[in-house]
């Protein structure tokens, strides 16, 4: 790891000021993605700005029809929160299946969402649960936030402060876990909001995406059979050492069906 200057931000305004005042800075949250990247010298920022001391960036609240998770809340806290388990059990379950226990004790929702790893779980929750990503500058709909492989709508100097999930009537997340890392080979979040349905897929493409055809079919009839025969084209999907794009396309249908089965079960 190349050396860098380390700063502990006192609050969000201080972090933003430090971002603006330094050469090539990076925010440090749980470090579960950033530190391995630095250790392998895949990045060499001049300055790390640690968000861990900012009390206002931690915690969870249920506000009306929204579950609000502040950016520095670790995965383990989301997974075990009685509020989340009650209001949005699919989100608690998703958070509890990220990586391993030690990773969940440090990794945060803000870091995961900012990173937009193609195989990360939280992006499927954000898009599937119609979330709003709140930053120190603005509010961004999840549908507009994730833009590509490790690419988001975040601008330079922008800091995620919280993620606001819309509480659905019901929802279910199903993933094919990579056996070594736990990352999603394919993960599907299905949610029902009145007569509307959302289907968000992670792990398969360059970043999370929705499957409009499945959503329309579920809006007509919310049954496993509605999605069981809908195929997603493999053309835009990723193939790698773990499996081919065609296999990922197949898994999307299987996991969407299983999610709906678990919901109507």
């Amino acid at each position: 790891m190349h050396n860098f200057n380390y700063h502990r931000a006192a609050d969000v305004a201080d972090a933003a000021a430090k971002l603006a005042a330094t050469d090539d800075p990076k925010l440090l949250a749980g470090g579960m993605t950033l530190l391995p990247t630095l250790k392998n010298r895949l990045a060499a920022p001049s300055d790390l700005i640690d968000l861990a001391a900012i009390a206002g960036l931690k915690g969870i609240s249920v506000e009306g029809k929204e579950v609000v998770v502040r950016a520095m809340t670790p995965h383990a806290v989301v997974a075990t929160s009685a509020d989340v388990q009650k209001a949005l059990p699919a989100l608690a379950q998703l958070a509890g299946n990220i990586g391993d226990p030690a990773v969940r004790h440090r990794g945060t929702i803000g870091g995961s969402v900012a990173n937009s790893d193609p195989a990360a779980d939280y992006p499927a929750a954000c898009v599937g649960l119609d979330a709003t990503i709140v930053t120190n500058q603005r509010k961004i709909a999840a549908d507009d936030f994730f833009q590509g492989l490790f690419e988001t709508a975040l601008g330079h100097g922008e800091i995620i402060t919280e993620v606001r999930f819309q509480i659905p009537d019901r929802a279910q997340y199903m993933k094919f876990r990579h056996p070594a890392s736990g990352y999603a080979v394919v993960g599907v979040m299905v949610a029902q909001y009145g007569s509307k349905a959302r289907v968000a897929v992670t792990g398969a493409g360059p970043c999370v995406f929705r499957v409009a055809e499945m959503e329309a079919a579920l809006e007509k009839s919310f049954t496993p059979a509605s999605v069981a025969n809908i195929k997603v084209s493999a053309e835009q999907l990723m193939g790698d050492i773990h499996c081919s794009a065609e296999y990922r396309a197949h898994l999307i249908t299987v996991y969407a069906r299983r999610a709906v089965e678990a919901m109507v079960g």
Partner: protein
Amino acid sequence: MDIDVKMTVNGKAVSGKVEARTLLVQFIREHLRLTGTHVGCDTTQCGCCVVHVDGVAMKSCTMLAVQAEGKAITTIEGLASADGTLHPMQQAFRDHHGLQCGFCTPGMVMMGVDIANRLPGADEKTVRHQLEGNICRCTGYQGIVEAIMDASAVMNAARS
């Protein structure tokens, strides 16, 4: 630019000067000379480096020493009693043949204590899932899982 760090390690206040990039595991091993905590990978996947930070299991290879400022750290050296009596988790690893070469063992024991603290009475399937971030190349996990379940029961009984 060196940075002063202060923390508590195994109940003792310690301090040192570190580079910003110094990992917590380097501070523990190279500055404090507590070499029980191991490093087995550079991808945060093996769990040999697990210590407790404010009572919770974390991978010390993926944490900066400066991120541990003011925290209470427990390493494998801090588990046994001063008179040498092993912690129930250490004793159970010994009783159940939970180790062969021993390289993964410090991390396994620290994770085992964390599992027993968080999930008292966890069944075998849960314990196996909870060990997802700890890799053992020798034992096949059977003895490790038995040790954690056994020690968990002993720790439970001691609590109640």
